[in-house]
């Protein structure tokens, strides 16, 4: 048996540089079946890593195996692409196309040659993301959330073994995010899904594993529960603000939540995944603050 039956992604000492800027600096990880989230600030290196896994970007050095194949090798790259579903971060669509046309276009790129079978598959994936009713509406008339679902639909074509999703829930409303969780968790029963999302509720609800990347380096690799636990004993609720806290904000009940230092009369509370991430990353990043 080849190693990728359980190890879908193997990355060792991966370095990716753009000129003088090092986007990934010695990243090592192994991914098996299940759902893994990459968490980190904007510019931390998540998208670079996802693009390398999706065969869209060459590494500078290190070792990468995806589904047992080396993306640097032309034959290996082709084998990966045949088993890959990818939602890029900037997945713009053709505005003059309908969702059906666009997904059909990607299906052709994915070598679905039989027209009747391809059209049936296109309808299946559009139904899966609840776009069965708007397959003939022009993309330019769709909402941002609908466009994101079109991107997701094309990634599901052919039931790929590896799904690489770069911020797939951006623009989705709470109900759509719930449906996204159902869809992806069904898919991940027998597949590998690696995604990046800043929605910590989605991570808690969906992911088996979370990897925190900061400045191109893996800072944490474990389960969402383990990341949450790193903040235990460091999260407080008090009646007043605390300037020396790492992060501090006023809650809906009018009290103040502190991570790190707290006033003398503060009460210790149960941490959340976001608390764990904030403590680990040393404070508010632009994206978590948003």
């Amino acid at each position, binding site marked *: 048996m080849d190693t990728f039956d359980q190890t879908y992604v193997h990355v060792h000492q991966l370095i990716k540089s753009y000129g003088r800027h090092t986007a990934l600096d010695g990243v090592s990880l192994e991914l098996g079946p299940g759902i893994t989230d990459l968490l980190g600030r904007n510019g931390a290196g998540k998208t670079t890593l996802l693009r390398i896994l999706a065969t869209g970007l060459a590494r500078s050095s290190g070792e990468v195996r995806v589904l047992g194949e080396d993306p640097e090798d032309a034959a290996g*790259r*082709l084998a990966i692409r045949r088993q890959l579903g*990818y939602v890029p971060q900037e997945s713009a669509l053709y505005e003059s196309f309908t969702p059906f046309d666009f997904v059909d276009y990607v299906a052709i*790129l994915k070598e679905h040659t039989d027209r009747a079978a391809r059209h049936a598959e296109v309808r299946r994936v559009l139904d899966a993301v609840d776009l069965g009713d708007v397959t003939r509406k022009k993309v330019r008339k769709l909402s941002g959330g609908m466009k994101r679902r079109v991107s997701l639909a094309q990634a599901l074509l052919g039931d790929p073994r590896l799904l690489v999703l770069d911020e797939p829930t951006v623009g989705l409303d709470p109900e759509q995010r719930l449906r996204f969780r159902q869809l992806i968790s069904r898919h991940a029963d027998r597949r590998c899904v690696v995604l990046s999302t800043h929605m910590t509720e989605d991570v808690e609800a969906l992911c088996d594993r979370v990897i925190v990347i900061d400045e191109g380096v893996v800072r944490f690799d474990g389960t969402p529960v383990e990341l949450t636990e790193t903040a235990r004993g460091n999260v407080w609720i008090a009646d007043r603000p605390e300037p020396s806290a790492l992060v501090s904000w006023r809650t809906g009940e009018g009290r103040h939540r502190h991570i790190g230092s707290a006033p003398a009369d503060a009460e210790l509370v149960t941490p959340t995944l976001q608390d764990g991430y904030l403590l680990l990353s040393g404070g508010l990043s632009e994206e978590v603050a948003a």
Partner: protein
Amino acid sequence: MSWHINPAAAKDYVEQRRSGSDVASIEVHLPTCDECRRLVADVTAATHEPLLDLVWQRVATVLDDATRPWSERALTRLGLSTETARLLGATSRARLSFLFATLLTVGIALVAARSGRDAQFGVFLSVAALGPLVATALAFGRRVDPAHALVTTAPTSIWRIVLLRTAASLTPAVAITGLASLIVHERGWVAMAWLLPGIAMAVVSLALSIWVPIEHAALGVATAWVAAPVVASRPAAELIDATAGPGQLVALGAAALAALVITNRRSFLDFRET
């Protein structure tokens, strides 16, 4: 009554291939026999469901075809497969803008060329040669293709896409400019002297796209082409002679060299992005 319908007879009955007396006999028997009713029901399902699926798929395909964009339908009428038409239709807007620009530029250059003076005719040759180059640059790349990230990570050969789209842009561009050349036919074949350098520049920019984005490659080649007469600083008549004479051989050599590079290094294109 102790007889039963055998499977072959049931199949013939369902497919309406039995004689009238057999059909009457079966239809008298069926209400009295559960076993035969089940058999006929099973055979009916097995016979008709695949047929229904097939009919439904055909209906769906006809409906799908009816809603395809007009540009794709036009391409299929020209003999292309629906798949190829769809691959080309994806960036048809960029190509339409380009065709409009080609018409405008060639029109302006022609007005100048019709004056009969060498300097203006030289401008026509320069501008006309840029058509194939721009067509190639607009065929591919992140700026003209919003779904570029998906195209470059799909199993279909990126070279196939590049060449298809280049051909789709190049063909009308060359046709329009070729027709424009007829208007200055008094110059003889020299009116078409832009064609070979134009195609050579397109192939060279494709070859350079192995290392740099194709838009940058095309811009560099176009700048060199436009700057060459300025740097040479020779009378227009001499430059026209050079383009129609040794320039043709240089263009042929450059195109051959670039084609060789493409043949040897093309696998690098789909993994070059930085």
